[in-house]
């Protein structure tokens, strides 16, 4: 297990480096001058040049790249061109809001998917199964940039039950979390259903029932334990999707998270901020995948990563 952990940790570094290089190349290819955007249309050429020099943007691209990598090695992501603050400070300010939203979205997805998926598996091909399947497909098909405004219209404007937008307290989290978590709920419902249904057909379940174990106990004690293991992998993989899916949800609900910050940063050509933000999301994604794999190995001792 330790060998596997070290090997996987060693893989994180090159992936992060490649992501950093990719994002550096992309952001510098974006047409438009960040300095001209910062100073506005009426700025004098001399002022633009001076600021460009001050920010190091007049240096050749390879020098900027080396500077970016050396800074990265020291944990310094540079300063935001627009806000003037260190990128790490800005990310630290905005990341908790995104993480909070992603976790709440995950909670919504699990609260919907677990009961629906389990019921569907227990009543395979019955009406509950069909209804659950319909809702699962509806969940993965509904665009979150439409669901969000519809929820605002109903729950915030018509019935005045929840806040329209912004971050403040648990109530403000409800609509964004539903908007973000619905698609994942659909995906997980299908996953829970198929995984559990497969377990229910295995010989050990017949043995458990033959020994007189009540169906509910057999399902809860035996089938669920095994059937939910593949679901954990999907949850891990989808967590990254939640982090990025939050970009649209944050835009709809004016949620002060990383997604909105990044969209603004791309529009303002704020190179260091875009690089830092994307890197943070990518590394979080890779680390969550690693944690998922470790959890998977811990839950299912048959998985022998040492031999892989």
């Amino acid at each position: 297990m330790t060998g596997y952990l070290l090997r996987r940790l060693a893989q994180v570094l090159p992936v992060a480096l490649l992501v950093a290089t990719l994002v550096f190349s992309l952001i510098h290819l974006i047409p438009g001058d960040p300095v001209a955007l910062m100073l506005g249309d009426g700025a004098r050429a001399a002022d633009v040049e001076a600021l460009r020099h001050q920010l190091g943007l007049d240096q050749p691209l390879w020098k900027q790249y080396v500077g970016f990598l050396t800074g990265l090695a020291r944990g310094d992501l540079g300063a935001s061109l627009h806000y003037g603050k260190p990128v790490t400070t800005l990310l630290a300010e905005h990341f908790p809001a995104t993480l909070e939203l992603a976790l709440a979205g995950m909670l919504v997805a699990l609260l919907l998917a677990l009961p629906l998926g389990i019921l569907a598996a227990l009543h395979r091909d019955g009406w509950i199964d069909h209804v659950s399947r319909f809702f699962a497909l509806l969940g993965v098909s509904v665009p979150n940039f439409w669901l969000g405004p519809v929820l605002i219209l109903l729950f915030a404007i018509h019935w005045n039950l929840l806040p329209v937008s912004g971050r403040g307290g648990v109530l403000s989290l409800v609509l964004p979390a539903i908007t973000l978590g619905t698609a994942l709920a659909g995906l997980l419902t299908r996953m829970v259903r198929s995984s559990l249904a497969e377990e229910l057909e295995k010989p050990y379940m017949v043995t458990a029932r033959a020994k007189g174990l009540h169906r509910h106990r057999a399902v809860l004690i035996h089938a669920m334990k095994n059937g939910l293991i593949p679901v954990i992998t999907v949850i891990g993989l989808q967590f990254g999707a939640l982090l990025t899916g939050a970009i649209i949800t944050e835009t709809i609900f004016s949620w002060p998270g990383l997604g909105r910050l990044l969209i603004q940063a791309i529009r303002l050509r704020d190179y260091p901020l875009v690089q830092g933000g994307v890197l943070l999301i990518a590394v979080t994604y890779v680390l969550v995948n690693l944690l998922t794999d470790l959890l998977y190995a811990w839950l299912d001792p048959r998985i022998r990563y040492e031999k892989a």
Partner: protein
Amino acid sequence: MKKPELLFGAAVLLAVLLMALFAPWLAPFDPQLQNLEERLAPPSWSHLCGLDELGRDILSRLVYGTRISVMVGLSVVLLAGLVGTLLGAVAGYFGGRVDALLMRVSDVFLAFPGILLAIALVAVLGPALRNVIFALVIIGWVGYARLVRGQVLQIREAEFVASARVAGASWLRILGLHILPEVLPVLTVQASLGMAGAILSEAGLSFLGLGIQPPTSSWGAMINAGRSHLLDAPHLALFPGLAILVTVMGLNFLGDGLVNALDPHGKRQITVR
């Protein structure tokens, strides 16, 4: 036929294709025709989905919007499918360093937040239809490559492949004539789900103002425009959202129905991305 989901999915796909093809005949009005005096008018018998913020007929704009969705969906599926299938097939068949290289590259693309990559690419290239398609192909090929690689890894060990090899068939012939036809059913499912994903992503980009630019009708852009009129004219966002929902749901039903029809016992690895 006891496959209602397949029927529903195929019917939706056919309807959307026909609507895109015959938009000029099906749309009741010119989608750009403005009637500022009646702007934001609610649905009525003369305008079934109402009028938008510039007094344009929403139903006509929806009908024309199918053209963008269909073009993006089909192009992305074809191009991403082609690139992903070629790379995945070669990696799976040869294994070794070629495979390791492809896996590392796909790791990077998977670790890179897809929608962010698309946003950044469209920002680099400019918000135009072909750039949106390019961006979605860049983020979409990985799914096909991984899927095909996995399938080829399994199939290349089959006896009929070994026989072909013994008979002296070239690798190109084995891959093209023996292995890839076996992968085709799984690819069809992935294509159907991939088209749904591409339509959603295009609409998402247009919603963020990075996709198709006005005055061309795009469902995502129509929802974005409707957001500022949620209070006084909710129909602006409601109808384009329903159009996306029904189309994407139809494609998902089609994909789901195909999974069940091709693989009723769930023995093959068909992933939903």
